[in-house]
């Protein structure tokens, strides 16, 4: 974990409510895809945890959905510096991917799929990606995933774009060795039931600190209590206990 300041380079809307923010700064603490950062915003007490979409040498890309005061405030920033804690959470373990893994992202769960897909495509893996949205207007990053060389399927619940239905409807037609997923909890549960292999799930929870100190985001797992911010946000399929 590292605390440092990042300069806002870009902050543009991709859809009516999803924004892309590109930041310049020290990304050396980001050690795995699927980690998150915790952003301090003026006038708000708690930091806001945001998943990492992509991180390279000195550059960090965050895609976030405006849902409350924090993300609303972020969406209005055009320049300046942000106090960011980087390198939070465990991230995805790509060593288990096999030859042709599938990545399943739903809505605001799409962004953390980008960096691991980019890494595995670069290693020559045949990667399938399923991106699920409610409707055509919400679709983002389809072309970016295609540009990485992944096989991309987009689903919309109302059928206004791509395959009509849920991500699990598209999953039936994919042959995969392993899966990685992130999205709303009902979607994660559906993927859990429908999946034919082992896989990794990324969870979200309201956090106090984001680095394991406050025990605000704890959950029960097969292998004991875990903090979503520290031993998570990624849990393996075998470890999950669905409570709610």
């Amino acid at each position, binding site marked *: 974990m590292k605390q440092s300041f990042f300069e806002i380079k870009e902050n543009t809307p991709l859809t009516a409510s999803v924004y892309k923010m590109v930041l310049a700064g020290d990304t050396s603490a980001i050690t795995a895809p699927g980690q998150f950062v915790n952003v301090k915003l003026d006038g708000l*007490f708690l930091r806001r945890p945001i998943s990492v979409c992509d991180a390279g040498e000195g550059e960090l890309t965050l895609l976030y959905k405006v849902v409350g005061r924090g993300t609303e405030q972020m969406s209005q920033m055009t320049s300046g510096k942000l106090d960011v804690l980087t390198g939070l959470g465990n991230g995805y373990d790509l060593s288990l991917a096999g030859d042709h893994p599938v990545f399943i992202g739903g809505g605001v769960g799409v962004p953390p799929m980008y960096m691991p897909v980019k890494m595995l495509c670069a290693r020559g893996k045949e990667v399938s990606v399923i991106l699920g949205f409610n409707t055509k207007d919400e679709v983002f990053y389809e072309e970016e995933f295609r540009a990485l060389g992944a096989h991309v399927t987009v689903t919309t619940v109302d059928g206004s774009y791509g395959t009509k239905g849920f991500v699990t409807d598209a999953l039936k037609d994919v042959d995969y060795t392993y899966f990685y997923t992130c999205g709303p909890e009902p979607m994660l549960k559906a993927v859990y039931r429908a999946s034919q292999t082992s896989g990794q799930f990324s969870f979200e929870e309201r956090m*106090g600190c984001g680095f394991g*100190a406050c025990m605000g985001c704890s959950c029960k797992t097969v292998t004991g209590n875990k903090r979503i911010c520290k031993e998570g946000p990624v849990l393996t399929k075998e470890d999950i206990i669905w409570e709610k």
Partner: protein
Amino acid sequence: MGEVNTKVTLCGIELDNPVIPASGTFGYGYEFAELYDINCLGTFSFKGTTKDARFGNPTPRIAECTAGMINAVGLQNPGVDKVISEELPKLAQCFHKPVMANVSGFSVEDYAYTCERLDKEPQVGWLEVNVSCPNVHGGGMSFGTSPEAAAEVTAAVKKVTTKPVIIKLSPNVTDVVSIAKACEAAGADGISLINTLLGMRIDLRTKKPVIANTMGGFSGAAIFPVALRMVYQVAHAVKIPVVGMGGVSTAEDVIEMMLAGATAVEVGAANLIDPFASKKIIEDLPRVMKKYGIGSLKEIIGIV
């Protein structure tokens, strides 16, 4: 003005400085030791420990507030056996000062049992007995809301321990002074206050409480004036040392708490938004002392 002196003595143990990360905001210490050398701290109060392991409350346990936050963690901890067998050995690798052991319970016997166990650990310098947790039903706070019950816990713990016992009090009472005095009369070696203020938030979209447990403990900069007032009231009513806490975020806040009567000062929620907060406060203390003409912190305790 030359070098300043930040040393204070808390219940017979000298601290290099009065800054103590508060229980529940610093885990068992070793995770912060990955970020900085935690031996710069006066000491710290470790995560509230109970007789048996506890998962705590359902999530969400956290809510944003203006200049503060609400938590309803509910004393999640691995239980005193594992704290002694697993957490304290890990802490010993990175912290070489006496630590403050924070203890909670659900009966007088619970408190006595857990304190007796931790009292025997050489790493433990003080026992901080939490009779004030707002997040557990039928436990913690019910002992801290009446002078008789608080005194009963104090006496039971004192009977089975040798180290200084500091009773941590709740602000959610009508007369904190009478409770502090009852604890002093029952043998307490010190008083710490304040624990969190009982609070609540509602999500306008769902029209339901943000916190799964409906209510939780409000902490952060917003509560500082309330905490300072209660520290002032208690410190002027008892002869034993008082550890002040509640919304402390800066070196200036530490000095203000000491002027009100605190011998040492705990830093809580500030650690959660800035993991380096306690270290920064300690590093900033000499500058602020010089600015206000304070040569030795010991000399300003309770002068207001």
